[in-house]
């Protein structure tokens, strides 16, 4: 494997790229464990994963700020549009566009607070965080505001823990030098896929049944 990675790096593939690809299964496994064992729902698996990577790139503080700002802006736009009878897709287009435009303000804030990391961050990372808006608005329409906020918070918490894992240099190095570790992760995911026990959140949800016994 070392030869393979050396070859990639010699040909200008950034170490970051290799790290993200190698860490992907570990992050996926982490999100599966959070769902199957703890009971954190979030927005599926891809959204928390991609937001974790975006947070790591932009920096935790600014990443979280963008996360919250974009949800707020999207909610306000949706609220303002509620009276206008308009089909789903066009409405989503307006909400997403206005949320994207609001990022100019975030950039200005970044300039004022001298955060070069944020100001120079690839705009794609910021747009990735905005993909969350579609999920969020969709959940709002279908499951109500409360559920949408809970799911978003869960996504944020998962991404925050994910960010911690991603920024652990030791773990990155471990996987980089011993890529076979991923096979153990796969075995773990299969195990979680067959786990039938109660989730931690369910022990709380059903506590009255247990205490009534």
């Amino acid at each position, binding site marked *: 494997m070392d030869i393979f990675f050396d070859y990639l790096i010699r040909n200008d593939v950034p170490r970051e790229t290799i790290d993200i690809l190698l860490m992907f299964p570990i992050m996926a496994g982490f999100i599966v464990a959070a769902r199957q064992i703890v009971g954190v729902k979030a927005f599926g698996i891809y959204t928390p994963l991609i937001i974790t990577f975006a947070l790591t790139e932009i920096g935790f503080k600014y990443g979280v700020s963008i996360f919250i700002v974009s949800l707020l802006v999207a909610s306000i736009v949706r609220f303002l549009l509620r009276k206008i009878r308009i089909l789903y897709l066009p409405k989503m287009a307006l909400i997403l566009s206005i949320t994207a435009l609001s990022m100019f303000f975030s950039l200005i804030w970044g300039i004022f607070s001298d955060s070069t990391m944020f100001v120079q961050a690839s705009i794609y990372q910021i747009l990735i965080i905005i993909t969350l808006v579609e999920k969020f608005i969709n959940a709002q329409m279908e*499951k109500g505001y409360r559920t949408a906020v809970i799911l978003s918070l869960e996504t944020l918490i998962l991404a925050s823990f994910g960010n911690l894992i991603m920024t652990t240099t030791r773990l990155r190095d471990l996987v980089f030098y011993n890529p076979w570790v991923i096979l153990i992760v796969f075995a773990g995911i299969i195990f979680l896929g067959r786990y*039938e026990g*109660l989730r931690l959140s369910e022990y709380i949800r059903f506590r009255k049944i247990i*205490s009534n016994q």
Partner: protein
Amino acid sequence: MNWLEAFVFSQKILGMNARNLSYIKPYNYRKWVKLVDNKIKFKKALQQNNIPTPKLLASIRSYEKLNDFDYNKLPKSFVLKPTSGFGGEGIVVIFGEHKKRTADGERQWVKTKGVKLSETMIHNHISNILDGTYSRTNSPDVAFFEERIKINKSFKHLAYKGIPDIRVIVFNRIPVMAMMRIPTKESDGKANLHLGGIGVGIDMATGVTTNAIMREKFIDTIPGTKINLAGIRIPYWNTILDIAIRTADVTNLGLTGVDIAIDRDAGPVVLEANARPGLAIQIANLAPLKERLQKVKGLKVKTIKRAIRLAKDLFGGEIEEEIEEITGRQVIGLIEEITLFGKDSQKQTILAKVDTGAGKTSIDENLAIELGYAGVLEHMKKFKIKPVLTLDEINELSKNKVWQKIEEHPDIVGVSKVKSSHGYSYRPIIYIKLKVRDDIFGTKANIITRQDLEYQMILGENSLKRFIIDPRK
């Protein structure tokens, strides 16, 4: 209970992982899940199997059909639904027709809160449904009209708007757990628990409610009222279990949640079946579901009767049974679901009122006719006796020995003089066979016009000697 016992017990609760992995995956095949998710197809399957369900009035599959739709075909009240809708979204309930047409001569109907809907407005709503606004996957959908269910009298005071329904979880043909779902102000007339509806646990043996939850928190009364939620007796309990099993058979699903409402006229009707029943029913019943599922797994149950028996024996409360064992008499409530056997083996299942204050049992004229006693009523007409008599008139009849002539009819076993608030009446008595709970016996009953009364039959003292009556039931 220490934490180890608590942990061991908690393994009897059905969690999301176990539901999906051990029950939905192996027992609910995709093909059959699709059937219950399509409300029109499933409704047709129910009708083919003679299971009562609100009648389909019309369905609209395309804009072409929508533009050609004749609104004169619609009755005064109906429900408009999306075929692949879920969680109660997109459903419009029409309670009646407005007297006046619109300025353009369109018919107008009235929905909840007295909001008026014209043909054009209904047209717009249907086009939203066709666009897939309310479907599970946002893909184009089909709209349909069905009969509106009218609320049963015993539930009228419970629901804010809309209609309470009974969710019965059936696994391997056996009903394992049930709950009543009551719409609230918060749930906007919908019975779904996650929208803020109330869930009330039901004792499987008796059909009596136990604990109630709203938003997964325990409540005693309907919020804002003093209406108690425990101890409500669900009418037609046996029929509900019977229909739930037959519906589960139609779905071909191993594990299913059958939603049944009680119509004022038609009795229990199936609203829909669910291939992914929710888990909150365990909280409402304060009982773990996984344990129950494991108990009936692999059992081979041939008849529906046996399945009902098993459900009651395995998952019902034990208090009544104890009383029955000691006294040898069964405990019944004030309203009982009973079966009457007619002259030519007709069967009628009705709700009867148990009235210890009434000396004699009486049944309604129309019910008597349905049971094959039309001849008795024909015979009575010959005597031209007024329905309400004074004391003098009745003494006159007795003096003339009219009863002798009346009793000439082979089905009449006697004549009864009954005093009521209006005056006296002279009624023929017949001997009928009936089934109350598991008891089949014969009793004398007088025939009376009870059309304006709530119950078609009153069980009086003469029929009640073999029972213990619990007014809470």
